[in-house]
């Protein structure tokens, strides 16, 4: 039994389906998967069980959560449990009427992701003419006084637009602007040579963001997340494994982060077969990287271990081949040279057209 940890946030990935066609989306999206989505009653039970465990924030995400036609009901039930309910969406299959309905049922806030402020670029990246519809969705949110977060995943091709992202967020009166650099996992890792900004890019963007943060203080929160390739120490990924977050994927698999099941050798359970509390406390997958016992050297004796928990397990696995090693983003980690050489490559390569685009809206991009 493990009663030491309390989850605060449930990330409910309601569906893999999505109307956007980002060509290298990491979500499985064939129709076979659709049939495996867990049903309304299961989600409602999961919300209840999560609330009993201590969860106070609920992120409804996907795929595109608007494609679930029980979304209104799920929002209503979440609100009845007093969960602070955030909808994380591309903003695309939305109408003013539906957003009004969701607001009335108790939706607390909405997060809309954009890829570019330049309509044509944005549409090319998303593979569909979505930009104007996103703009409408943002305006509807603010007209309904629904707190709006604008989420941008930054990479080399759009980082030069940072001032435009800020201007757009101000224009639509967003409450919060997240300028989060891509996490180089999955497809983004394969395309890192084309996506990773240079140190100069990052320095400049960070300065612009910091200026906006000061100027807009109290009106709009501006969050800039530096890619961990340019920080001395790793991110405290998910604020620690199995510490504050539970992700439940469309098929009902409960996970410490949305990619945890891609790490071989870990076992995770489904909410259709177990109570969430049992999974949270007993799952060997959740317990594998919890606390400090598992920590490798040099994390074991490092002062920062309570801050970053040794960094991202998925990054350790994908770059080092072993999820139990320190995140190579750390300058103290034995594998840090892999990060250094990627940085050096970013400094050398000229602008290569980006063929691959990240799907946002998984509710994790800022973490």
């Amino acid at each position, binding site marked *: 039994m493990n009663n030491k940890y309390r989850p605060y946030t449930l990330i409910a990935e309601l569906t893999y389906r999505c109307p956007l066609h980002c060509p290298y989306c990491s979500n499985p999206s064939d129709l076979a998967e659709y049939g495996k989505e867990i049903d309304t009653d299961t989600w409602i039970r999961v919300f209840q069980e999560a609330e009993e465990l*201590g969860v106070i*924030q609920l992120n409804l995400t996907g795929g595109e959560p608007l494609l679930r036609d029980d979304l209104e009901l799920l929002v209503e039930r979440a609100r009845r449990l007093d969960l*602070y309910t955030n909808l994380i969406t591309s903003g695309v299959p939305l109408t003013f009427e539906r957003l009004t309905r969701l607001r009335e049922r108790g939706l*607390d806030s909405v997060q809309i992701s954009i890829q570019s402020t330049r309509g044509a670029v944005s549409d090319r990246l998303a593979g569909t003419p979505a930009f104007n519809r996103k703009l409408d969705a943002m305006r509807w949110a603010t007209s309904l*006084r629904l*707190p709006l977060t604008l989420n941008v995943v930054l990479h080399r091709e759009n980082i030069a637009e940072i001032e435009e992202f800020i201007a757009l967020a101000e224009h639509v009166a967003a409450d*919060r602007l997240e300028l989060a650099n891509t996490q180089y996992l999955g497809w983004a890792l394969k395309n890192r040579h084309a996506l990773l900004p240079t140190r100069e890019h990052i320095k400049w963007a960070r300065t612009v963001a910091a200026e906006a943060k000061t100027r807009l203080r*109290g009106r709009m929160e501006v969050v800039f997340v530096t890619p961990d390739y340019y920080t001395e120490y790793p991110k405290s990924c998910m604020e620690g494994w199995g510490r504050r977050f539970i992700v439940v994927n469309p098929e009902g698999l409960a996970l410490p982060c949305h990619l945890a099941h891609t790490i071989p050798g870990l076992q995770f359970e489904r909410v259709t077969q177990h109570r969430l509390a049992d999974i949270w406390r007993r799952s060997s997958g959740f317990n594998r990287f919890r606390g400090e016992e598992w920590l490798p050297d040099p994390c074991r004796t490092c002062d920062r271990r309570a801050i970053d928990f040794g960094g991202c397990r998925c990054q350790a696995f994908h770059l080092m081949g072993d999820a139990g090693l320190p995140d190579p983003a750390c300058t103290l980690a034995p594998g840090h040279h892999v990060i250094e050489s990627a940085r050096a490559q970013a400094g050398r390569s000229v602008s290569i057209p980006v063929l691959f685009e990240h799907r946002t809206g998984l509710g994790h991009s*800022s973490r």
Partner: protein
Amino acid sequence: MNYATVRPRLSEKVRLRFDRRTDRYLLLYPETGLELNETATAIVRLCTGEWTIDEIVDHLIRSYGDVSRGEISRAVREFLAILADRGLLQGAA
């Protein structure tokens, strides 16, 4: 913030919720929340747009008689600054 005229009011994005795990109130807003102690909860409950900051201080003095006015008004000022900073008060910018 002017003590005699400003009437603090919570922004619409925040929701006050009792947390039965900690027996405290939580102020929730997108992505995160603040765990409130008793004084902070009392202040938040008075941020309805009805009361000026001076009046909020008066209210608190009545319930915490043993603390000096100076101390209470400093606590209120500091806490309201925290809220304003995070955009949790309406029109505070």
